[in-house]
């Protein structure tokens, strides 16, 4: 079918703007969590038992460690995971880094609060097997994570990149005829296969199981997973005079490509696992995608050289609409 691809722009800027701020964020936020946590632990050191509870199950404590080993493990866990996430994000383009910086903030804030909080909750305890883990630690962790995530989000705005592709739609690119003053909109759906239903059912079973075996609140994770899965699995694709946008349930906007930033568009093909390593919102160097399945996809090349992919039926027509709108905007 329509897989004629125009040459991929190869002009790359030497350095992603905002790199210094990104590196500072992903290093400073976990460091802040660790330093604060260690300071609080050090201040309570004499009140903590030599052996502390390190793991809880449905029937209470089912694992212990020495105080030193727990402190070192907790610190290494927060630092290691933060650095790993930062490393993964290193090759990502601007908006991908913003999401990863936010993830590092949320993750380090939540994990650090829970791990150090679980330890500080054992002050004055003599028998580690009798130690309890308050649900408030998780609530506090979620709050700290949300605050640090918000800080990381604000510190890492998506910066505009210099244009490297001329806003000229190639002569052989699909383009629908457009009368002067005519308005048009193209609607499409991007939808995953039946595997989503099975996965959602699996998560529901897991949620029911942990709710019965552990505690009702433990089902929150699987429940959130189901909501996220259903949002990712079915999204509306719209092309109009504003450009391209992909939204779910009318409230979650996964992608937006303003018309002024589009160089041209074309029908294409993508392979979810081989090219993007999975489903949902995906990022690669200078590329991002919203993927629900392999196969037909809309490919949008932006003036700054980045490419956006959306797996959607009727991609060729969507590209023709986008190209017609871009051509009219450029000619105006």
């Amino acid at each position, binding site marked *: 079918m329509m897989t004629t691809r125009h040459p991929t722009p190869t002009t790359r800027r030497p350095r992603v703007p905002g790199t210094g701020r990104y590196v500072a964020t992903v290093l400073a936020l976990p460091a802040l969590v660790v330093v604060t946590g260690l300071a609080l632990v050090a201040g309570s050191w004499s009140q903590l038992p030599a052996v502390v509870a390190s793991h809880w199950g449905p029937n209470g404590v089912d694992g212990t460690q020495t105080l030193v080993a727990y402190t070192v493990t907790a610190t290494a866990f927060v630092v290691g995971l933060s650095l790993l996430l930062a490393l993964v994000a290193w090759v990502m383009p601007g908006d991908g880094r913003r999401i990863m910086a936010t993830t590092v903030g949320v993750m380090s804030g939540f994990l650090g609060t829970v791990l150090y909080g679980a330890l500080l909750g054992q002050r004055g305890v003599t028998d580690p097997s009798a130690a309890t883990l308050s649900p408030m630690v998780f609530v506090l962790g979620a709050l700290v994570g949300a605050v640090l995530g918000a800080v990381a989000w604000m510190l890492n705005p998506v910066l505009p990149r210099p244009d490297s592709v001329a806003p000229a739609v190639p002569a052989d690119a699909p383009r629908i005829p457009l009368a002067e003053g005519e*308005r048009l*909109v*193209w*609607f499409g759906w991007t939808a995953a296969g039946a595997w989503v239903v099975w996965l959602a059912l699996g998560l529901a079973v897991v949620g029911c199981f942990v709710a019965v075996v552990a505690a009702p609140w433990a089902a929150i994770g699987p429940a959130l997973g189901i909501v996220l899965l259903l949002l990712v699995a079915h999204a*509306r694709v*719209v092309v109009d005079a504003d450009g391209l946008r992909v939204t779910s349930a009318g409230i979650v906007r996964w992608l937006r490509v303003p018309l002024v930033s589009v160089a041209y568009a074309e029908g294409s093909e993508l392979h979810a696992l081989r090219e993007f390593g999975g489903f949902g919102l995906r990022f690669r160097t200078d590329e991002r995608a919203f993927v629900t399945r392999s196969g037909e996809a809309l490919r949008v090349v932006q003036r700054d050289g980045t490419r956006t992919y959306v797996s959607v039926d009727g991609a060729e027509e969507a590209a023709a609409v986008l190209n017609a709108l871009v051509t009219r905007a450029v000619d105006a």
Partner: protein
Amino acid sequence: MLIRVDPASSLPIFAQIAAGVRREVLEGRLGTGDRLPAAKEVARSLDVNLHTVLRAYQELRDEGLVDLRRGRGAVVTGAQPTALVEVGEAVRALVRAAATAGLSRQETVSLVTKEWS
């Protein structure tokens, strides 16, 4: 699903929107159970009044092409747009008659264009 409106056309905008949906149904790109985009979204994208889109959807409902239900929006019923089906049949009859009379494609199109104006 492509919807296009031309404010300069003599056809009212709601009729152009309805015609766009009819065309999608006739060409098989909208089938039974498919949901039309929310009227609010269509109005925003085409920069037209919300009531204009709602009027188009109501016209399609009156023709039996869509089912309007609160909370579910406009859902395609699977019925074929009668007016367009009739046009399709008339066009096929015209092509057969033109071929019988020995008219070329260009001559037939010229006759239609002349009649249209």
